[in-house]
C-alpha cells in the first residue's frame, strides 16, 4: 500500500519536474527574430546614443531581462512577451512600462508585471528604457533609417533589416 502510494506521488511529481505535459511558456509561442534581425538590432543598440545605453543598463538593473526576451541584448526571459519583435514606437513602449495592464498580450499573466514603474522610475528613466526597447525592436526611426540605407545599398536584394517580424504587442 505504502509503496503504491509512493509510486503514485513520484509518478505525478515526475510530470511536473520533467515538464512532460506541462505546456509551454506563453513566450515560446512567439517567434524569435531571425539571425540577421538580431545582428541588425545589435548594430542599432551599439550605434545608439547615451539614452539607449542608459536604457540598456536599466533593462538589466530593473530586472526586465528576467521576464522579457531581447536576443540582441542577451535577454532570455520567457515570462513576459518578447520585446524584440514588437511593432511599437518608444512612446507606446513607455506607456506599456507605466501602465503594463492596459494592454495584455493574449496568453500572458495579467498581474505578473509590476505596475509601479511609473512611480519607481523617473520620466527620463522610463524614456531611456522605452528608447532602448524600441531601438532593439527596430521600430520607428531606426527602421526607417534601415529602409533608407537598404535602398541605397541596392534594390532587389533581400531585406535583412528584420522587418516583417509580426510579433505581438508588448
Amino acid at each position, binding site marked *: 500500500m505504502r509503496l503504491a502510494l509512493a509510486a503514485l506521488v513520484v509518478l505525478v511529481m515526475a510530470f*511536473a519536474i520533467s515538464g512532460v505535459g*506541462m505546456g509551454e511558456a*506563453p513566450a515560446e509561442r512567439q517567434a524569435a527574430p531571425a539571425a540577421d534581425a538580431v545582428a541588425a538590432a545589435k548594430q542599432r543598440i551599439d550605434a545608439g546614443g547615451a539614452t539607449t545605453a542608459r536604457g540598456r543598463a536599466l533593462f538589466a538593473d530593473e530586472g526586465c531581462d528576467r521576464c522579457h526576451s531581447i536576443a540582441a541584448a542577451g535577454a532570455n526571459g520567457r515570462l513576459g512577451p518578447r520585446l524584440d519583435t514588437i511593432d511599437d514606437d518608444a512612446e507606446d513602449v513607455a506607456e506599456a512600462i507605466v501602465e503594463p495592464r492596459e494592454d495584455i498580450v493574449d496568453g500572458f499573466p495579467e498581474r505578473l508585471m509590476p505596475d509601479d514603474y511609473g512611480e519607481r522610475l523617473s520620466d527620463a528613466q522610463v524614456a531611456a528604457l522605452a528608447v532602448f526597447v524600441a531601438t532593439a525592436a527596430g521600430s520607428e526611426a531606426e527602421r526607417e533609417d534601415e529602409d533608407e540605407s537598404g535602398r541605397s545599398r541596392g534594390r532587389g536584394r533581400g531585406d535583412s533589416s528584420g522587418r516583417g517580424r509580426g510579433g505581438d504587442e508588448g
Partner: protein
Amino acid sequence: MRRLFAPSRPAPPALALLALAALCVLVAGFQHGRLFHRGYAEVEIIGLLFFMNAIGSTVVVLTLIFGRIWLFVLGALSICVPSLVSIAISHSSGLFGFREGGYDGDALVIVVAEVAAVLFALVGGATAAMTLRQRAGA
C-alpha cells in the same frame, strides 16, 4: 535527532491532518515544477528554487508515506515557510532582482496550498505529539 528519523504511528486524527498537509505540499510543489517549465526556468536563482521546491516537496511527502512524521513536519515547514516569505518579498521589494506585480491564479494556488500545509502540519504535528505522549504515559 533519532526520533526525527524513527517511524511513528500517530492517532488517526493526527494522521489525517498530516495527510492533508502532505496533499497541500504536493499541490504547491507540483505548481512550482509546472511554473518552472512555463518560463521561470530562465529567471536566475528563482528558477532553480522552483525546481528544488518541486523535488523537495516530493521527498517530504514520501517521508510521511513511510511513517517519518517528524521529518515530514520539519520538511513541510522548511519548504513552505521560506517559499511563502519569498513570494511576499518578490511581490514587494524583489527577490534576487526579480519582482512580481500581483497574484494571478498560479500564485494564489501556491499561497493557499502552502498556508494550508503550514497550518495542517503544525496542528497535525501537535496532535501527534500529544497522542504519542499519552500513549507513552499509559
